[in-house]
């Protein structure tokens, strides 16, 4: 399996007036050719920061990626790339789909032109051929009347169509990886299903790898090969999709799965909830970040942060109750 992306010890800090928010506190993950990785978590867990970091979209003075972090794309160190290389990377080698298609599209440019821009920049095409290729791409993302719509402006598109246009834009440069940051959150349920179907089809046709950032477990379950669960800036569980949903190991993953009503749930029965709320990301967190909300909290959970424990083929989770002794944990 060709390794496209390798990230080690990613740490991202945002500087705010209330203090330094440590959005990502040491994340390790990788992405191979042709696979879809879903990074799942609730708001504030750091998943968007992870997505932005991969493309080095986090810049001073607002935020910074710590020096000890390592991000390698096809063996090249992203953090050491010069301006020219980074520009080539963004859009050309890694494409990104943003959450809100309303604000991610230039309202004063025609859709076709926006897609063509990417083509001209990354594939060196001239304007006319770029535009007709843009129309082609709109057809591929199943927009009706693609020739006509390419000459229209974003406000003339519906939400779902805009998202398809965004997908077309992201795919235009022929990237090896597409990062989709909550691509369906702002959309209706049936349109969500269609967009996810479109992304799966895209992956099948072009072999592009995908990194799917979402808070919706159902979306992850439907499209991802592997799933990583994030909480308070760390990855707390990694597994292949079926394994994660069938055999969740980390208490947070279990709680997350139990929060949503299953198909057979009794009407108006109380849902399982987690007490409390996510921890403050300013300053260091002592011990496991989930400890105070965890049903199986042990004394060591409050002291030391657990390291990842291997549970089987590609399945890891960071939890003290999964190992017999206390050796092997990291210091906070």
């Amino acid at each position, binding site marked *: 399996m060709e390794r496209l992306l390798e990230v080690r010890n990613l740490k991202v800090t945002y500087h705010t007036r209330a203090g330094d928010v440590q959005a990502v506190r040491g994340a390790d993950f990788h992405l191979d050719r042709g696979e879809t990785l879903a990074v799942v978590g*609730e708001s504030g867990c750091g998943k968007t920061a992870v997505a932005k970091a991969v493309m080095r979209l986090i810049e001073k003075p607002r935020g910074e990626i710590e020096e000890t972090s390592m991000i390698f794309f096809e063996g090249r160190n992203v953090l050491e790339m010069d301006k020219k290389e980074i520009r080539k990377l963004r859009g050309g080698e890694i494409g990104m789909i943003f959450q809100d298609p309303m604000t991610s599209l230039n309202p004063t440019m025609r859709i076709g032109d926006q897609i063509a821009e990417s083509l001209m920049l990354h594939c060196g095409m001239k304007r006319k051929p770029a535009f007709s290729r843009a129309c082609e791409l709109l057809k591929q993302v199943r927009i009706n009347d693609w020739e006509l719509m390419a000459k229209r402006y974003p406000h003339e598109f519906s939400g779902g169509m805009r998202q398809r246009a965004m997908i077309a834009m992201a795919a235009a440069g022929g990237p090896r990886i597409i990062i989709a940051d909550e691509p369906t959150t702002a959309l209706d349920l049936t349109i969500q299903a269609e967009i996810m179907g479109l992304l799966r089809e895209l992956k099948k046709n072009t072999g592009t790898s995908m990194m799917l950032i979402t808070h919706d477990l159902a979306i992850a379950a*439907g499209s991802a090969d592997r799933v990583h669960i994030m909480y308070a800036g760390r990855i707390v569980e990694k597994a292949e999709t079926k394994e994660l949903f069938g055999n969740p190991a980390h208490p947070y993953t279990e709680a997350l799965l139990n929060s949503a009503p299953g198909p057979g749930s009794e009407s*108006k029965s109380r*849902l399982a*909830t987690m007490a409390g709320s996510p921890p403050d990301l300013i300053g260091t967190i002592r011990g496991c970040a989930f400890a105070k909300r965890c049903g199986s909290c042990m004394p060591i959970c409050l002291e030391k942060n657990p390291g990842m424990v291997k549970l089987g083929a590609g399945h890891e989770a960071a939890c003290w109750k999964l190992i017999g002794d206390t050796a092997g944990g990291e210091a906070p």
Partner: protein
Amino acid sequence: MSVNGHENLIEVRNLKKSFRLGRKSLLVAVDDVSLSIKKGETYALVGESGSGKTTLGRLMLGIYPADSGEVLVGGSNVCVSGKKERLEFTRKAQMIFQDSYASMNPRMNVGDIVAEGIDIHGIHCGQERTGRINELLGLVGMGGEFKVRFPHELSGGQRQRVGIARALAVEPEFIVCDEPISSLDVSVQAQIINLLIDLQKKKGLTYLFISHDITMARHVSDSMGVMYMGRILETGVSSDVCRRPLHPYTRALLSAAMLSGTETGFEAQAGKGRGAGCRFAGRCGCAKAECLLTAPELREIEKGHYAACHIL
């Protein structure tokens, strides 16, 4: 909709509402909708954006005047009430909003926000008022110390709780919950849902639960109606509607929710002008010629389970 021994608190009959867009076009938001809700029960109104569910909720509270039809709450018609009756009515029926941040005046503190209903109707003042605020905050699981906070200092879940406390302040019988959990994290959603369920049991409240999340809607409701472009396409007991969906649109919603992603084909544009046929025909996988010509009526297909579709 037949009444089954239990009294109907809410009855909606042939409600219609259109909005004028610019000079020419008319957007029919609610198109001849009828439903009823029994006292102490929850009716879930499920649909996507543009379905008219939010407008219907607001019509039922009298926030917008309806074009035609009636809304009966406890027997009296909301649509034709005078000013005094409208004021009285606001004590009977309240609303919880989706965007908890925008639904609060950023310049008012939590205490004043919660007590707004009390202040408007002059129910309590002074010490009594403070005591009542504390009591209401306690009901939604928040401490009295939150009184001095401002909306921007609270988390989404806390804001939503404050919104619920505000609605409860006037001791209503009926609460319209307009997408109360869509903007919240999954774990917080569960907390708010539990809160709503508990409050219903404790206070005998009747809910209209508006949502696009059909799974959650099924979980919290007794009956359900599926709306599409201003019309109810299917309605019945929630578990019936979800386990044996009759209408193709309901089936599409359910499978989208269950993540197998049926594709309904090329996306149709949300219509402003209407043809005479079934609203869903343009996106339906099973459309016949008849579907494009006449709009189907809601018929009882199984006991207590209605659907508007020519194919059934």
